[in-house]
């Protein structure tokens, strides 16, 4: 379903009059897409404004890095929430927002990783490599980011056409990378026993994955 949704997003609008309902859904899709695009930039704009007004607190680098990490998780959860929302009766066209949400997750995740490499490690590649190899929470975060790369690269129309059914299989990596992202956050906080916030994300992701499993089981029984 996922592949179909995204593939459709890449295709030109249905010819006029062919499908009235679809047509109507596209009337609102354009503005909604623009609104989601702008809204998704707000977390970044907030950080820039806070940075210019001295509002990032005593440890600005930590503040910004953590904020970018949090928003990466938020966008990953939103991406995973699209299909369940659709099953719960949201208009089918919302699947066309999914690619943008996924790319925003990659965007914030990449900024998060860049800040770590730049401001925390100052491009000391050996230290970065050692961190990734030795520290499980960084290993998990890096793996999650790495798995996002092929998904971002193949999110365009050309790749969808070219990969065909393999595209869908490839994009199932999302079910692996999102839990890795949560694990990264969890392990980061676990040393200080401060797992309240990671637990919220873990619960949300667990629900989003569980509804998929339940749906499959129900579908298999019916078949």
């Amino acid at each position: 379903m996922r592949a179909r949704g995204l593939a459709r997003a890449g295709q030109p609008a249905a010819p006029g009059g062919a499908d009235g309902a679809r047509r109507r859904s596209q009337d609102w899709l354009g503005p909604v897409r623009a609104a989601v695009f702008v809204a998704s930039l707000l977390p970044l704009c907030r950080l820039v404004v806070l940075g210019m007004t001295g509002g990032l607190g005593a440890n600005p680098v930590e503040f910004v890095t953590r904020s970018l990490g949090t928003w990466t998780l938020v966008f990953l959860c939103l991406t995973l929430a699209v299909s369940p929302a659709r099953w719960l009766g949201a208009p089918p066209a919302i699947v066309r927002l999914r690619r943008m949400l996924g790319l925003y997750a990659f965007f914030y995740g990449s900024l998060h990783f860049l800040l770590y490499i730049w401001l925390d490690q100052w491009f000391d590649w050996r230290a970065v490599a050692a961190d990734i190899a030795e520290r499980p929470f960084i290993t998990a975060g890096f793996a999650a980011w790495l798995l996002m790369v092929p998904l971002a690269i193949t999110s365009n129309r050309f790749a969808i056409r070219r990969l065909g059914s393999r595209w869908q299989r490839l994009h199932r990596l999302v079910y692996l990378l999102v839990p890795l992202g949560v694990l990264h956050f969890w392990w980061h906080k676990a040393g200080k026993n401060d797992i309240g916030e990671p637990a919220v994300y873990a619960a949300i992701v667990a629900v989003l994955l569980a509804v998929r499993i339940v749906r499959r089981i129900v579908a298999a029984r019916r078949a």
Partner: protein
Amino acid sequence: MLIRKTGAHPILSSEITPRTVYERRREFIRTAAAAALLPAAGGVHAGRADQAAPRAALATRPSPLSTDEPRTSWEDVTGYNNFFEFGTGKSDPAANAHRLRTRPWTVSIEGAVAKPGVYDIDKLLGLAPLEERVYRMRCVEGWSMVIPWVGYSLAELIRRVEPLGDARYIEYVTLADEQQMPGVRSPVLVWPYVEGLRMDEAMHPLTLLTFGLYGEALPNQNGAPVRIVVPWKYGFKSGKSVVAIRFVEKQPMTTWHIAAPREYGFYSNVNPEVAHPRWSQATERRIGEDGFFTRKRKTLMFNGYADQVASLYAGMDLRRYY
């Protein structure tokens, strides 16, 4: 050399900020902060910190043990804290610590001493002359500050209570009162917070029984009314709002060591060569001083106090005794 040696470099009178200017420093900082622009965290910190009743000024004398590095601003020292009894967020202590009542307050001296007893805070304050000690403070999380503490060497108190032969360690216990400290209801740590030192560490002149900072009584979020500061160890060794000091024979079980033994050892000396399991300790970010795009500075062995304290650990494997 960052540390002034006794007598070698007397403070020039030209270096001392005139009292009238010094007394208006917070007004100056506030004006500067307002000019730098109003909203968000900085302003909130300052506002919260200043809502509390005015703190008593403490008469101090300078100490040769002070560093002359630039001091971290009052706002950052009092607004960016780890004090889990008031919440796990860095700004939680400044927001919640106004509930702490610091008078009446007593510190109970217990265990292997000739003169155990319950000491009133005001009696403790007058036990020895107060000094201003400007110390580096290195948090285990990888950030650091320079803080002008006010207090006297813990050794002054220890000598007066006359430790017995089997007093080999001290453990200091900090307040854990749900009524005053909302964080104590959360199970993040085993309360009360306990930290400890070997007796020679506790007796070292750098180890400070601390009552104030920036020339005033400690703000609550910094561990009022009395705390311990051990500048060559990671910040969490410096217990806040101390209610008891026990003289014991066995190495105490300390709070963070109980919570995560692999991550936080009993010694926890600042050591750039021994990494924390989740991050390197080789570098640090100096709060307020290092800009957003500044490379982190190298962390110094024993936080730069190696000349004074390295001998305490001669022959010890500091990787094993982290």
